[in-house]
Every structure is written in structure tokens, then in C-alpha cells.
């Protein structure tokens, strides 16, 4: 039943090839490209209003998007086999970098996240691990017959937990959670038994008090507490949540209009062009605008999962499915944070928030997905 549903909706690759010749020659997926372009276009429109400097910030973001699209184009050309071959090495380099960060890293506000090696641009190894962990876990599980048994499951969990622990030590709980989630997503797609899933959920629930008591720092606890009761500190940590909700709620059905958002333009909303850009969208374009964007995101993820289902090898399937789920997690975390369902963690809205290297990383990931989809070979029946 479910397979049929998937088969019915997914486009046959041959069908695609006939539709867009030049696209397929460039190894691009037109549907995914269209959806991503719509999201990024909407993002630029909102950014024009959210940024203080108008066009300047939009140009700078457009430049980044251009760079990201080039990265996507590049990664789409590579054969998925190449990714598979590189996965363990990429993972090893990543782990090594994380250790180096702990030893020599630079950073701000008590956290060491950046690594500045001579001759290389500054980068965050934890950011790279967002791709490194799904690659590694997919590589590892793809060698086994699926569903995996207990021992490989434990090994896969170990592969996930190691970078997770290194990132927590930085400390960067938010990124660590996302990195660990990416490994778990691959495990889930690989066919982790429902019993084990239940067990892990239960274990996760039980670990909350442990995390609270031993792992989480005071500022992190404060964020959680503030979420529970933003009124307790309306001008301090609760300010972001309060102002974000006010911006969203006051937008109503149709919003206040483009450039008319008072919360953002009068500077009540902090981080309006970065992490809280969704609140600007919600204020100016209302419920209609938010729904449009969320539906676009859902379509991107669904399209990616189709691509994964159509993939020819176990590695490609696991990797592209994992990337799709991770992308959706970013969206959920940011949207839940901005709308006051989750504590404030510094996760930007994918493809829309201004700045950072995340837009390049994300588009590179979509490039990998397109590579999986377009580099097909005849299979032995």
C-alpha cells in the first residue's frame, strides 16, 4: 500500500529526463530546484523588509545564494559512489577537527566552536559534522543487510554519539542535538525496529533529568524556563519570545503588509533578519504567508524522500533520506522556537535566515540529493 503510494507520486526518472533535457544533463532536479528557489525568493522578499539597510543586505544574501547554487551544481555532478568512498575519511577528518577545536579552538562567550588552521579559512567542524554523520552512518549501515541487528545498531549509535559528545563538550548543545538526530534519522530509515525506537524514546525521556542536572549549563536551563513562562522575565530572556509572538499574532490572517511590520521596523523584534525572520514574515504576510512557506518546506522534504525512495543503492537511499529528515528538523526547530513552542536555540530558518555558511552547506546537501537522483545506472534485475 505504502510503496504503491510512493510509486504513484514519484516521477519516473525517464519521465523527468524527457521533460527537461538541459536540466538532466546538468544533473539538476527541476522540481526540487523550483521549490528551493521559491523558498529562497520569498526569503529575499522578507529579508528586504527585515534588514535595516534594505537592498544591501538582500544583495549580500543573493550573493550567498549564488555561491550555494554553484556548490549545489558542483555536488550534483559527482557520482554517489564517490560520496560513499569518501564518507569514512570525511568522518575521520571531522572527528579529528572536533578534537582540535577542543584543544586549540577559538570562540566567543565561553564556547569554542571555530577552528582556524593555518592556510585554511576559519570553519566550524561541528557544522561539517551535520553532513559527516549521516554520510558515515549511511556508509556503515549500507554494508549490512537491513534491518540492522543489535550489534551494528549499537555501533551506528556509537558513530553518532562520538561527535555528539565532542560537540557537547564545546559546548554547543543545539548543534549536538541536531548532529545526533541526523544519525538517528538514518538509523530510523534503515529499519530500526519499532520496539527499539520505543525503547530509545523512553530512554531519551528518562535522560532529561540527567541532562538537566549534569549536562545543561545555567543559561540553557534559563532558556527552557523562560519558554515555560516568558512573563517571568519580560525584558530579559523572555523578550525574544514575547516580541516574536506579538509579531506573529498581530500579523493576523493577511499580515500588516510588506514593509509595514511594526514589531520588526520599530526594532521590538530582535534578530529579525536572522533567527527570527519567520516572525517578520508572519507579521507582514500573516497566516497565509506562513502557511505558504511551511507547505513549501514540506513539499521539499517530501520530494527529497521520493528521491530517496527511488535511489538505487542502500547508501544513496539512507543518505538522501537522512538529509531530507535533517533539513525538516532544522525547519521544525526554528519554527517551533520562533512561535514559542521550544526554547530559544540559535538555529536559523533554513534557506531564509540571513548570513552564515548554512545556506551553502544546505544547498550542497541538496546537490548530493540531486546527484543521487540523476546518476542512475542500469541495475541487474
Amino acid at each position, binding site marked *: 500500500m*505504502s*510503496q504503491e*503510494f*510512493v510509486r504513484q507520486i514519484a516521477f519516473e526518472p525517464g519521465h523527468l529526463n524527457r521533460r527537461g533535457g538541459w536540466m538532466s544533463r546538468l544533473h539538476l532536479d527541476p522540481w526540487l530546484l523550483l521549490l528551493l528557489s521559491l523558498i529562497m525568493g520569498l526569503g529575499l522578499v522578507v529579508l528586504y523588509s527585515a534588514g535595516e539597510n534594505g537592498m544591501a543586505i538582500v544583495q549580500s544574501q543573493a550573493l550567498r545564494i549564488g555561491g550555494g547554487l554553484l556548490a549545489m551544481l558542483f555536488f550534483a555532478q559527482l557520482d554517489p559512489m564517490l560520496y560513499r568512498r569518501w564518507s569514512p575519511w570525511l568522518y575521520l577528518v571531522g572527528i579529528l577537527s572536533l578534537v582540535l577545536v577542543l584543544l586549540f579552538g577559538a570562540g566567543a562567550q565561553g564556547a569554542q566552536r571555530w577552528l582556524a588552521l593555518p592556510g585554511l579559512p576559519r570553519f566550524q567542524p561541528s557544522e561539517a559534522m551535520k553532513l559527516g554523520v549521516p554520510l558515515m552512518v549511511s556508509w556503515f549501515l549500507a*554494508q*549490512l*543487510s*537491513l*534491518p540492522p541487528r543489535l550489534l*551494528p545498531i549499537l555501533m551506528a549509535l556509537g558513530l553518532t554519539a562520538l561527535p555528539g559528545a565532542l560537540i557537547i563538550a564545546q559546548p554547543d548543545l543545539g548543534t549536538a542535538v541536531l548532529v545526533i538526530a541526523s544519525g538517528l534519522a538514518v538509523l*530510523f*530509515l*534503515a*529499519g530500526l525496529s519499532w520496539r527499539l525506537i520505543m525503547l530509545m524514546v523512553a530512554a531519551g525521556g528518562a535522560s532529561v533529568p540527567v541532562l538537566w542536572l549534569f549536562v545543561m549549563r545555567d543559561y540553557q536551563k534559563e532558556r527552557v524556563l523562560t519558554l515555560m513562562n516568558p512573563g517571568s522575565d519580560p525584558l530579559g530572556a523572555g523578550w525574544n519570545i*514575547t*516580541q516574536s*509572538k*506579538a*509579531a*506573529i*499574532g*498581530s*500579523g*493576523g*490572517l493577511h499580515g500588516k503588509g510588506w514593509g509595514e511590520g*511594526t*514589531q520588526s*521596523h*520599530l*526594532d*521590538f523584534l530582535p534578530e529579525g533578519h536572522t533567527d527570527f525572520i519567520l516572525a517578520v514574515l*508572519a507579521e507582514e504576510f*500573516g*497566516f497565509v504567508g*506562513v*502557511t505558504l512557506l*511551511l*507547505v513549501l*518546506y*514540506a513539499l521539499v*522534504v*517530501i520530494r527529497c*524522500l*521520493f528521491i*530517496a*525512495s527511488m535511489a538505487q543503492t*542502500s547508501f544513496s*537511499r*539512507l543518505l538522501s*533520506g537522512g538529509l*531530507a*529528515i535533517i533539513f*525538516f528538523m532544522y525547519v*521544525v526547530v526554528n*519554527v*517551533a522556537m520562533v*512561535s*514559542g*513552542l521550544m526554547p530559544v536555540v540559535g538555529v536559523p530558518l533554513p534557506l531564509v535566515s540571513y548570513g552564515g555558511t548554512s545556506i551553502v552547506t544546505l544547498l550542497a546537501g541538496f546537490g548530493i540529493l540531486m546527484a543521487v537522483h540523476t546518476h542512475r545506472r542500469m541495475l541487474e534485475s
Partner: protein
Amino acid sequence: MSWGTLRNTNQERELFQRRSFVAIIVVILMTGVLIGRFYYLQIIEHETYTTISDRNRVQVQPVPPTRGLIYDRNGVLLAENRPVFSLTVIPEQVSDINALIGEIRDIVDVPPGDVENFRERLDERRRPFEPVPLRYHLTEAEMARLAVNRHSLPGVEMEARLVRYYPYGRLTSHVLGYVGRINEQDTRRIDKVAYAGTHYIGKTGLERVYEKELHGEVGYQNVETNARGRVMRVLEREDPSPGQDLTLNLDIRLQQVAHEALGDRRGAIVAINPETGGLLAQVSTPGFDTNKFVTGIDHESYAELRDSLDKPLFNRATRGQYPPGSTIKPMLALAGLASDTVTQSEIVHDPGYYELPNSSQVFRNWKREGHGDTTLYDAIVLSSDTYFYKMAYEMGGSMMADHLAHFGFGSVTSLDVRDELPGILPSPEWKRRVHNESWYPGDSVNMGIGQGYFLSTPLQLAATTSVLANRGERRAPRHLRYIEGDIPAQHLLPDVVRPPVEMGQESDWEYVINAMEEVVHGSEGTARRISPGLDYRMAGKTGTSQVFSLEGEEYDEDEIAKRMRDHALFVAFAPADDPEIVVSVLVENGGSGSSTAAPVARQVTDAWINGFPDVLTDQAVPGAMENDGTAGGEQP
């Protein structure tokens, strides 16, 4: 394969597709949950968050009314509002105030006193993001320098504000008083809502008396502000109604003549139009520049004014209580006639002293050898103490007090003079009440020449003298003439009708007034020295009030000698038969009234009756003559 199991690729693919299907369902569900969250926030709770958002950005701001102006009788502006550019600081936007002040001082000069005042204002309660003034009266050059450096001075603004200005600050200091910043003390006596945008309030003088009229009514505006409190635009506005303009009876030219007549002597002059009670001039010297007080005087300058031996802040005209001396003799004469204690023709021998009956106590006349045989008329002209000693003894304290009270002694006489003091009209009842002592005949005798316990203010002397000039009609002194340029002051002033002073015979008035004319014009009159060149009839009376004690301050020998001298007094009105002006003059430690006070009084009456010197007109009253028609016809 490496784990030794045969792989079923189709089975694995199906397993993956099942999981993908679950994932898609979860994605759709989660998207639904998120959309539901936004539905809740944006549709269901829309009103709530709209309110929060509006409360964020929309602030209600009071709009202060423009303070009413004050004009003299000829329409000369005495108190106006001038736009002043000041340098203000919004403390909320400054991280290090001290460093900022240092930076500002590199650009414009900020005196230490201003910094001191600024720090005091910082500690006062104020609205958040309200700019606090650091320096007033920026020059154009300073504004230009600040504008250039503004980007490096966050929280620093230049603000144009209407600030009270007194063009004749020193001349009008004791009449108008001044406005100043509202302090804690003021907040207790004002309606906080009505004063919500107002920075200044009348502190003394007429500014205080007519505070309600001058202030006007506050307006409101809804403004949109950003998160830092900066106003972006005005959404709605209800204009304030400006304060009412006041026109006074005062003539600034006369005020200036009086001021200059006193020169650098300490003293006071009050001039009244007896017909209306309008105060034409009210001077107390030395004056002080009231403009310094408006934006906040620094401690050093204030201490200098406060501690000066000359007491410039002291309003001698209305709060200076001095023994009236012989200036009350005309009133006492009328009391004696009215009470039948004496008659117009009765003759008293003045040997130079008066001996209290049944006692050895002797009271000396100011002229040792005495004036010989004198009538009451002569006694006024020559200012014979002996005559009045005897009359006072015979009348007794109670009867004198009763009669003098009718003229206004011992009570506040004016309608709108702030903090006027009533003086002391002594009587046996008063002495028992206040000092718990009996009234001795000697007290009556002293009272007969305006000494002893008797105290009066220059304003009161002018007011009582104008009763005389009016032949009994009493008109309470007043400053206010018109409100808003044409509404008569009666609409505002308390309607006080004081019964006229009645005499047994009407001729008594002319008898006494003739004697007062003789004081000035007669060959024996005590003020005869001012008569040369006098081309109108002036009735006057000299007086000298003794300085009894020095109060615990240290003076050098010279100062003691100077400040022990008697105060010189003179009261007068002119023209005697139809008075247009009543003047009282006090010169502290001026010696005798005839030599010091009377010439001053004549300068004032000369100016009023014969016109002001041209120089003065140009200097003090630009365009005054054009306004004459509207200001009324009392101008000669």
C-alpha cells in the same frame, strides 16, 4: 555481505519505502501542527497580540501648553517664551555618562554648575527615554560643532524648547518673579495630569499667583515609538490650549525710572494709580536677573545672591516691614479729627519734648528746640512729634488702631501680590495677645509717630496713602489689568469691596491734604527741598524709621555705622487735587526722608505726570505709544 548474510535488495528497498512513508506522514503531521500553532497565534489570539504589539509602539505623550505672555500696560512684553536650543542626553542610551560628559566637553563648553544640575536631574523621577538637559542656550557655532560630532555621541540630542525669558529680568524680578523647573515640592501642589508635559512652573511673584491662567491646558498625542523610545511619527493629536496672556497695570518705563532713581541704594518704591488701585510700579532694589533661575541657577551664583548683605532676593516692597515713622501722621491726624480728640484750630505748644502726665517720662521732638505753638496743620507740615505725642496719648492705642485699620494698616492690602506681609498695627489687644503684656501710655505715644511696635511695608504705605488721595475711597492694589488683552481683570480678581473711610466733616480731608501739599510746597515743609521746578501740586509726607537692632551678623565698623542709620521714607501723591499717582519710597539706611526719599519720589511722579524722557522711551519701550489706545486712557 561482510556480515555473512545474503541481502535481499528488494526487501530492503521496500523496508526503506515503508519508513519513508512513515516519515512523510510525520512531516505532514508536524507541518500541520506548526500551521495549527500559527493558526492559534494569528487567528484565534490575534486580538491579544495586536494589543501587545500596539502597546509596544504606541505611546501617549502629553503636549505641554505654551505659557501665557505677560505685558505691561502699554503692551510691552515683560515675559515671553523663547526657543532655546539645549543639549540633552537620553540616559537610557548612554553606557558611561561620565565618559560622555567628558567627550561633550571637548566639543562645547559645559560649566561645572550645569553638570551639577544635570546630575541632580538624573536622580529625579522622569519618564523613561526622556531627554535630560545638560546645557541650555547653545550658540549656532556650538550647534554646528555638535552636529558634526553627533554620530560619535549616542544618546545626545539637540532640542529646541520654549523657555521663559524676561526681557527686563532685573527690573521686574520682584514683580513677575520667575518660573523654574518643577521640583518635588511643586509636584505636591499641582495636578500631575495637567502638568504631565510641562517643565516649568511659576515659583514666585505673578508667575506664581497667576500660574493657573498662564499655564493653559495640556494636550495629548499618540506617537509611534521604536524599541529605543524614539518617536517615529505622530498618530493622533489633541492640541493643548495655550495659557492666557496677562496685561498688567505696571508701566515698565515707570518701573525703570523708579529703579534708576534708587540707583545702587537698597530700597523700595511702590506707585499706585489711586483711582483703580493698579500698581504702576513696584520696585525693590537691588534686583536680580530672574532669567538665571529659569533653567536652574548654579549653587555658587545662588549662594552669592542668598548670602549678599544687600539681600537682593528679598522683596522689600511687599515683605519689608519697617516702622512707618512720620508718614502715618496724616492718617493719624484724620483719626484725631474723626474721633474729636483734636480740632482743626486747636493749638498745642511744642517746647521740643512731651512729658507724659503723672510721669517723669519725656519724649523728645526731632527738633530739639521745638516748633512753638502749632495747629494740627502745622504739625503735619513741620512733622511735629510733640503734637502727635500728645494726641496719641489722648486718643489711646485702641482708638488709633481702630481708625488706622480702616486705611489698611495691619492687614494685607493687595489682591494679587504674592506673599505680601501685613505689617503690625499695634493695639492694647494686640500687645496682650502677642506679648502678653499691658499697654502703657508710652506705647500710645510711640505709636503716634509710627514707631514702637508699628510696622508697615512700602506697598501698604502706598495703599494707605492712596486712601488719603482718594479722600476715603479704598481701592485694593492690583497688578492685573486685562486677561487675554481685553477681558477686564475683575473676572479673575476677588471682588473685595472695602468700606470707605468716613470722616465727620468732609473738609477734614482737604485740611490734611493741604497740609501735605505744604510739606512739599511750603517754605517750612519738611520736603520743601524738592519743590523747585515742580510744576504740579504734590502732597507728601516725610518719615524716618529708626533701625533698632542688628541681628547677629558680623559687620565691620564702617558697615555698622552705615547700616545703623535710619531708613528714609516718603509718601506722596500728585496732582494733589485729582491724584493720578501715589508713591511710597523707602531707602534703607537713607537717613532722613526729606533728603533721601523725597527726591526719589519726585523723579517718579515727574515721569508719570510730565512724561518720560525720550531716551528712556526708546530704550525701554519700543513701540509703546502705538499701544496706548488699547491699553486705556490713564496715560497722561
